[in-house]
């Protein structure tokens, strides 16, 4: 059972306090998008063995959505950050690079 620290209220929350919300940093495609764009937004998801970025809600706590960077293999948590962003914070990406050299996830990687 995971522990994730909510970046809003600072509580190291038990998994039972949290609701998972799937992959983070999706770009919404609405009317006007072509089928390929829309289907990739709605259906296609990463399934990495390693570094992953995902959404969680502190549902039985402060109610806020946040993002977590986590290793799906070892369940190591690299960090959590507010959901109001389109990309992981630079400091977090550096921290991941230190622990998982050569990592990449969608358009994000050690270099970018």
């Amino acid at each position: 059972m995971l522990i994730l620290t909510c970046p809003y209220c600072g509580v190291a929350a038990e998994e039972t306090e949290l609701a998972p919300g799937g992959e983070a940093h999706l770009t919404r495609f609405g009317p006007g998008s072509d089928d390929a764009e829309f289907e990739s937004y709605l259906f296609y998801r990463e399934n990495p063995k390693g570094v992953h970025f995902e959404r969680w809600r502190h549902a039985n706590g402060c109610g806020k959505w946040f993002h977590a960077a986590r290793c799906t293999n070892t369940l190591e948590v690299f960090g959590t950050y507010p959901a109001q962003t389109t990309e992981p914070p630079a400091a977090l990406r550096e921290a991941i690079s230190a622990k998982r050299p050569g990592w990449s996830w969608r358009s994000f990687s050690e270099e970018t």
Partner: protein
Amino acid sequence: MSIRLSTGGRFLNRARPVRFSFNGQRLPGFLGDTLASALLANDQMMVGRSFKYHRARGVVASGSEEPNALVNLGSGNRHEPNQRATTTALFDGLEATSQNHWPSLEFDIGVVNNALMRFLPAGFYYKMFIHPRSFWKHIYEPFIRQSAGLGKAPAPEDQDPDTYEHFYSFVDVLVVGGGVAGLQAALSAAQSGVKVMVIEQSAHWGGRAPVDGGTIDGMDPDAWVEKTLNTLKSMPNVTVHTRLMGAGVYDHGYALAYERLSDHDPDKGGVRHRLWRIRAARIIAATGALERPLSFAGNDLPGVMLASAVRDYVVNYATAPGQSTVVVTNNDDAYRTAIVLKNAGLDVPAIIDARPEGGGALMEEARGLGIRIETGRGIARVRGLRRVVSVQLCEQDGDGAVLEDIPCDAVAMSGGWSPVVHLWSHCGGKLNWNEAGAFFAPDPDRAPTDQTGAPFVYCAGNANGAMDLKTVLQDAVEQSQNVIGSLGCESGDASVPSVAQTQEAPLLPVWLMPAQAPKALRSKAWLDYQNDVKVSDVQLAAQEGFESVEHTKRYTTLGMATDQGKLSNINGLATLSKALGEDIPAVGTTTFRPPYTPISMGAIAGEARGALFQPVRKTPLHDWHEAHGAVWEPVGQWRRPYCFRRDGESTQDAVNREITATRASLGLLDASTLGKIVVKGPDAGRFLDMMYTNMMSTLPVGKCRYGLMCSENGFLSDDGVVARIDDQTWLCHTTTGGADRIHAHMEEWLQTEWWEWKVWTANLTEQYAQIAVVGPQARTVLETLGGLDVSKEALPFMHWVDGTLGGLPVRVYRISFSGELSYEIATPASHGRALWDRLLEAGAAFDATPYGTEALHVMRAEKGFIMIGDETDGTVIPQDLGLHWAISKKKDDFLGKRAQQRTHMTDPDRWKLVGLETLDGSVLPDGAYAVAEGRNANGQRNTEGRVTSTYHSPTLGRGIAMGLVHRGPDRMGEVIRFARDDGETMIEARIVNPVFFDPDGEKQNV
């Protein structure tokens, strides 16, 4: 025969004799006995029949690893199957019965399977019972269920009368295991000041050390254990617990532990079992080791036991499993058993040591006691039917040619020891093969890691592969120091107690006895007692191509029983690796999964049963409903009245009466459970235009609008009436079950997509009571209460107004879900009951009739209104339901808009909403499918529609239904056929307009 010795017994309280019963026979024992020791003390060698072959089985072990001695405990609603006699503490009045036999333990018909054994090898069921296919369900499975299996489950109608609970604990270091390793590790850790919790599964501290001997700091182990325990108990940062088993280790330092508070003393009362949910920064698993059996023919006969168990029964329980015990071993440790037996005045005809050179100092000590020692020898076969009569001596490195028949009535066997690595492995810890000890031990470089990536489980002592007293204590201190260091704490005292012990000679791995045993012997050499798996079965699996240890496990069922292969796993995979010609580490182990030993379902449920299973939400009118015949219906966590039954009325009668009265005059509905979410802010209108399919930003203040909400993939998710309260405020009504979900849905989009929009939401569902006043007299009754102009002109349809009614503050919405003239009146929850009482009082003259959810459903269906969850199921889009009018064509975007443009969504071949009228006026079965011509690729009949809502309409005096039908709206008037539950009988129904009653809306337009 097995006997009680006249003296000794560390755990026995001879001053407290107790009586218990086994298969109805009353037997004596002492407080401190386990059921197993008491049975042995009464010469009850046979305690059960085996799973598959129904062979006679006796006690093998002395702890939780016991595979055979599983019994039914208790009776009636306290009956429990598959309880291990070795961990069941004896108490006065204990009732136990044996399992898996018919008609009795002694005379068991199923033992015919034993005679047929060579026809029932591994995979027999798979091979034999596959054809003909139809025989499985009706013939094979019932037969197998009758003849195989362990205990019987309690009767389903029996409610467990005991209570259970969960405890939560947060510690720095959890030490699992109260042997000398666990106590020493706890002491070393606690001296640094961290919070330590020590748990021991049995009632006794010290583990095996007091039985096995040696001295610690000049004390015998018992004295050292007592002193160390007292030190720990005196430390404010330490708690110690017995009868509390570490059951499982999970991610990020989470552990489950299982406490048995009153199993040993049922009269004590209180909670029976407790499940501890522990968060530990670090876990030290000092879980010891388990002795392995040796694989020789007849090693499952009652009287053949683990050498350590024989020693335990003599030393701890003053019970000798035999008066004449042959010891067979591949290591020095089993010599301790021979010495203990001899010193207790019992006969040891021989120690059979598979090692050509024999053992070390312990062998010399045994020889000094006059015990005959046969080195390089093994047991070819144990003779006996229901108990041991003799063993046949042979050369270990031979094919089992009998050298001599040695009479005896018990056999103590030892194939070496395996660390208990379960907790280490539960959360991903990996193992290394230890060649010298012939066991798997934790690989410290591949430990389970926590959220920071740091190892959080450490094994200590036997569990870590440290196998003698001295290295056990050294390892305990070392691991404890590692743990403290990893927590960034200053370590305290790192001194290791001094130990005096007898040096042991190395073990010789022996996986089959004798080494070249022919098939006849191998097929009687058991690996897994509980699931009846033999050496020959594993070899057959390898021969048939089951090369992976996980496949072999499933094919043979090795290690799959309730003991999870505690005794059998290493022997089994060694046998497999030999059959495959591979090294043991290359074959690997199966996966260790929690719990370590089975835990009760009661403990898992904890307090969450009956009324505490989940909270019940009650409206302000709940008590009134309760007092007036409400038939309750759960809706989410709410309880809503389905109808109000009067004396002598059936439920259907009550529903019909409520509908008729409402349509004729006046009905009242408690609508308080409807979700009420306030959405407020400068961007609230823009936000609601994204949430709803229709336009909400243009809704004038004072007006209401019915709205639909879809998920991003286009499917209809919720509906309800939205009221514009002021310039920046909207009140969104949701379905009863949808309030929390929709509020979360709004927050998700606000927080994660449009976080710059200035919008706030609040779920006010429980702040207001809401009462629907429905029927031709609705206006009259409100006018009787007085305080508000509710005339057609002042409050037109789909408008709302604030004011007072009968002196109570209200907001009145003129909306209708029944087709009648109708007002929904919201008032602060604390006024809800008062408003309800006044409406009843003022409505008495008009036959004011409270109605429930079923009348609500029937009336909305008569009007063709959809219900979320009936007409929708997560695959239905608003367009399927003819709700185009509620989907804005002006808006560029809303959630679901893009998805509703996908080709499948715009396909004219979709099933769409229609009304359905049976030709004979009967009620269509709920969920029935309309049957079309032909069959699909799976040979099933094609379908062309299904019923989504179906009721008897008292208004129309006939059955009415709604359904989704292929191109339904284009097929008005057509008759289609629906299958009844039997799948054969058909009901014909005509496709009609779903608005069955008052299609022009004349009743509400007054």
